[in-house]
């Protein structure tokens, strides 16, 4: 019995509602569908959580409060009081990625964050937004971000291009980190599931490993959302506080 393992098949994008406007393919795909669900779930969580303002929170309210406090804490400790106005942005980003990652873990669903297009779009929004915030706040002074303090002038010739480069590759590292984690995790699950299916009765061993891997992937799903959010905070802190 030979079962062909196609671990990357799960990432194929299918058009659910084909739609072309002026030669541009804007079909409603399964990725768009999952993102819609993610947005609706986040909205539902917050709406349900804040519907009744009880002093002693119920389940929904305490879930909403916990996620709010978690992100608020993160923004406060990393950006400082000036970061308060960016809290909604970071919160939205965190919740969307978290829910999208968790939705990807549901069997037969689709890992939206395993698409480089999605993660790169998110990272590009962060990068462009942070750069605009920095320029608006500090104007020309923003360029001081690329000049390390207390360094001999000779070294600056070397350090400034490095700083500039490391600033410019931020959207790529930010997006590839999330994308590669989800892609590698889901591919690994599929490969082990393929092993389990193809070796008959002995498949119980790869299946056992797969169960542990699912637990690891759930951890990674939460962790990557956290990392994306905290890196956004650090970038914001760079732009607002200039080191």
């Amino acid at each position, binding site marked *: 019995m030979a079962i062909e393992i196609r671990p990357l098949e799960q990432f194929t994008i299918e058009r659910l509602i084909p739609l072309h406007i002026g030669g541009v393919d804007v079909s409603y795909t399964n990725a768009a569908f999952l993102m819609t669900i993610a947005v609706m779930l986040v909205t539902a969580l917050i709406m349900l959580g804040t519907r009744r303002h009880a002093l002693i929170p119920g389940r929904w309210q305490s879930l909403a409060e916990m996620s709010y406090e978690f992100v608020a804490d993160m923004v406060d400790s990393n950006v400082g009081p000036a970061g308060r106005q960016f809290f909604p942005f970071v919160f939205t980003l965190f919740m969307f990625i978290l829910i999208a990652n968790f939705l990807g873990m549901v069997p037969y669903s689709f890992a939206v964050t395993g698409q480089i297009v999605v993660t790169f779009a998110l990272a590009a929004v962060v990068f462009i937004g942070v750069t605009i915030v920095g320029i608006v706040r500090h104007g020309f002074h923003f360029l001081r971000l690329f000049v390390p303090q207390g360094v001999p002038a000779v070294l600056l010739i070397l350090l400034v291009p490095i700083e500039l480069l490391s600033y410019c590759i931020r959207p790529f590292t930010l997006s590839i*980190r999330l994308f590669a984690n989800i892609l*590698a995790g889901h591919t690994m699950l599929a490969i082990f599931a393929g092993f389990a299916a193809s070796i008959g009765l002995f498949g119980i061993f790869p299946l056992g490993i797969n169960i542990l891997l699912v637990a690891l992937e759930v951890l990674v799903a939460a962790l990557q959302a956290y990392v994306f959010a*905290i890196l956004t905070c650090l970038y914001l802190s760079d732009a607002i506080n200039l080191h």
Partner: protein
Amino acid sequence: MDLASAKMIGAGLACIALVGAGIGIGNVFSALINSVARNPAAQGQVQPFAFLGFALAEATGLFGLAVAFLILFVF
């Protein structure tokens, strides 16, 4: 050497990146254990950083793994 075997070798070579990730993750958690053993009260403060470091170190290994998958399944 034909293309298929070259692909296999290339994918295997790309997985060497995981060495670095392993060392990095080991370093992160050994430092965490060290610092918590010295000062248990600091656990709450250092743990978030440890997990951030873990995720960053893990991601570098996954870049290599992603390259291996790309070689194997995309090209």
